[in-house]
């Protein structure tokens, strides 16, 4: 996930400050040096860094911090505020044309992910607005670029307009628009060839397309791993075209993603979407405030809570609470927990959304694989109903059977049982409202009120789920 190392550094720098009761001007300066290096290391453009550091320093050195009771918190707040501001204040939605079709043109460097994003965008529009998009293949330069878009169109069941590679892209787009008019498509997505912002000939071609069809949105696609060059690219494209927004791709890598910070500041263009994976549904709306929180290691609380809310059934969680009070967390619950987590998405992504987890050293070694959860489930599925309800039954011979049944080594069976025990202990503590156990487990990871709030709400929901399941089970038996 993006920004991990940046939040690490910022937290280190701020951690130094946190230990002090009172903050002197020199302390603030020292911290800002760390912040500055951290941002630079994260590939944030250096002019952006300069402005940013200056803004924060001015505010931090002012009376509001030095005289306040909790200077460290104040500084963090300022850094957070300014970070959010730098990235834009709120999520910016896609522009929509007053009459159909809304025309979206994808532009960017080679290999930034234009074609993939075009497909993702079509998928997103169909899902959220029941749109009937048409994609136009205007990349006539790269070998097989047209085939790529056609394949994506097939996968999504979206029509793709192409004229092969022997025509002028401007003509292709013109013809494509005629077809869109005939078929009454409400969105048209134009995929253009990748080009350097300094390539005059190709940039003119883009400008010609713009003059021809006047797209509602011209989205600049930028690789999140781009270094200092990101702002030059954005500036170069912006100079020739009327860029309306930015899509940041490949954010699922371990890049620190400084490009996100830079682009908005330097060009004034909002980041509208982020690409988070290779599948066609992995396109997310960009939320600047949440991103800022994530940078500071405060976790993407809102995202996590939202995810949990949609995926957790509240009643079932209440049931769980009752059972926990009776001290009977069993393997059925364990399995259920596992399912819940899997429903929410890839486990490592979810963990990182928990505040403090992103830079928790334990996290680095954890290295959770999507398959691990499946293995655990396989082991639990190999148990008899009795064993699931009464884990104490599991002796060596039964464990061997489990190992055989699930195709995993005995050691792993043991490990799962141990994990189950920890989980059991944790659930008991959580139901008593005692978060100490959790905090130990995460090191010093879960910090702050927000973090606790999230953990509590998770525990509450877990309880509710269980109740519902038991109820269902009873109905089934009777």
């Amino acid at each position, binding site marked *: 996930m993006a920004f991990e190392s940046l939040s690490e550094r910022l937290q280190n720098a701020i951690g130094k400050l946190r230990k002090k009761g009172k903050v002197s001007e020199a302390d603030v300066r020292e911290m800002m040096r760390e912040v500055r290096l951290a941002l*630079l290391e994260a590939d944030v453009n250096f002019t952006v860094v300069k402005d940013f550091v200056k803004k924060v320093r001015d505010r931090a050195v002012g009376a509001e911090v030095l005289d306040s009771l909790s200077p460290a918190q104040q500084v963090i707040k300022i850094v957070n505020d300014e970070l959010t501001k730098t990235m834009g204040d709120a999520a910016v939605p896609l522009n929509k044309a007053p009459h159909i079709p809304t025309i979206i043109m994808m532009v960017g460097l080679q290999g930034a992910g234009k074609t993939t994003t075009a497909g993702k965008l079509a998928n997103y529009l169909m899902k959220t607005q029941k749109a009937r998009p048409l994609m136009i293949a205007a990349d006539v330069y790269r070998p097989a*670029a047209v*085939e*790529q878009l056609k394949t994506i169109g097939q996968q999504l069941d979206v029509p793709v307009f192409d004229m092969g590679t022997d025509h002028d892209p401007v003509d292709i787009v013109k013809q494509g628009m005629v077809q869109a008019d005939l078929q009454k498509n409400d969105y048209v997505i134009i995929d253009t060839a990748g080009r*350097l912002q300094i390539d005059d000939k190709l940039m003119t071609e883009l400008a010609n397309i713009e003059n021809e069809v006047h797209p509602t949105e011209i989205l600049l696609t930028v690789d999140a*791993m781009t*270094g200092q060059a990101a702002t030059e690219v954005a500036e170069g494209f912006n100079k020739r075209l009327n860029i309306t927004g930015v899509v940041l791709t490949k954010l699922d890598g*371990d*890049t620190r993603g400084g490009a996100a910070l830079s682009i908005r500041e330097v060009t004034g263009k909002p980041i509208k979407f982020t690409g988070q994976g290779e599948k066609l549904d992995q396109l997310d709306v960009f939320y600047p405030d949440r991103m800022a929180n994530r940078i500071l290691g405060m976790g993407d609380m809102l995202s996590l809570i939202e995810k949990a809310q949609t995926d957790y059934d509240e009643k079932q969680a209440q049931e769980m609470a009752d059972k926990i009070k009776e001290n009977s967390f069993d393997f059925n619950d364990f399995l259920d927990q596992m399912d819940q987590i899997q429903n929410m998405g890839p486990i490592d992504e979810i963990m990182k959304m928990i505040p403090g987890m992103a830079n928790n050293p334990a996290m680095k070694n954890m290295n959770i694989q999507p398959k691990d959860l499946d293995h655990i489930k396989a082991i639990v599925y190999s148990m008899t109903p009795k064993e699931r309800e009464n884990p104490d039954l599991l002796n060596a011979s039964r464990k061997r059977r489990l190992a055989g049944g699930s195709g995993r080594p005995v050691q792993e069976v043991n490990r799962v049982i141990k994990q189950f025990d920890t989980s059991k202990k944790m659930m008991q503590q959580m139901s008593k409202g005692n978060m100490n156990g959790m905090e130990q487990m995460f090191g010093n990871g879960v910090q702050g009120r927000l973090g606790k709030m999230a953990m509590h709400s998770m525990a509450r929901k877990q309880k509710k789920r269980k109740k519902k399941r038991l109820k269902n089970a009873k109905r089934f038996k009777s």
Partner: protein
Amino acid sequence: MGLFDKIKQAFTGNKPEEKVPEAQQETTQKYDAGLKKSRQTFGEKINALFANFRTVDEAFFDDLEEMLIESDVGYETALQISDALREEVKLKNVKRTDEVSQVIVQKLVDIYGEAGEKEDNTLHYAQEGPTVFLFVGVNGAGKTTTVGKLAHRLQSQGKKVLLAAADTFRAGAIEQLQEWGKRDQVPVIASAAGSDPASVVYDAVEATIAQQADVLLVDTAGRLQNKVNLMKELEKIKRVIQKELPNAPQEVLLVLDATTGQNALSQAKQFNETTQVSGIVLTKLDGTAKGGIVLAIRNELHIPVKLVGLGEQMDDLQDFKPDEFVYGLFKGLIAPSKAASTEDLDPVHTTEANEQTTPADTHDAEK
């Protein structure tokens, strides 16, 4: 003789006995053109920096750090250079900035030279039997294009080349390679999209042995280095190759986009862990103003850059010449004499370049 001296001579033309073969000149020109943007920005930045400061103080070093980082030389390298300079300045008690300018460039070149001392920038081929090159990298770095360009080059050298389309994931990737195969007139081993890439590679290796081809180029799907399962897939591909040809792949080439920032280091590190990267292909170098990434790669990764992409044409893939690269990068910054260092540098280096490329000079040199 240190690299810095060598380069300085290249600029000043002091030592005519250093010969510059004609062929080399041609590549030098290519580098020159390809790196025009890198150089301009790099040179302008250093000059602007000196223009801003009259004295050498902490603020100067802060700005210097920023300037180096901005050129993508890498955070570690930037700190290393500025720390070394602080020492140097203290020792020599330098007060004026123009005196530092030479020291900075010299330091950069020295670090670059030292880090690259035992570096082998050539591609390795099998002593006998077929050679296998495996191409790895993140999405959109330019793997397929590089494979296509290299195939063209090897083909025109009279080698029998085979291509393996092991990117079975991305839509249109197989067609893309097949298109290159058609252009280069090189057979492409492919199977249906979505099939196991390792099986494609197996077929390709078999075909290579059966057809007694000289070189097999394996194009793989782009993957982000933090996706463990995908990285394991690469390991498997490598194992499959090694099972049939124990000494292969002779080269595992990591394809890096030159516009990538610090993440390039993470990419190199993690691809190296799974597939033992033997060399780097730096693509899209013509578009970036940040040639500095080469310094970072050398200084922090110690993986040699073997090929560079300097343009979109078929023959724009060049062998990496470390000395020429640094020549291209610092051209105009290394002053021939003290007097010139304060002058406007542009006219100076153009005349030098002319001197260097006049045929008379080369003849002299060859005598």
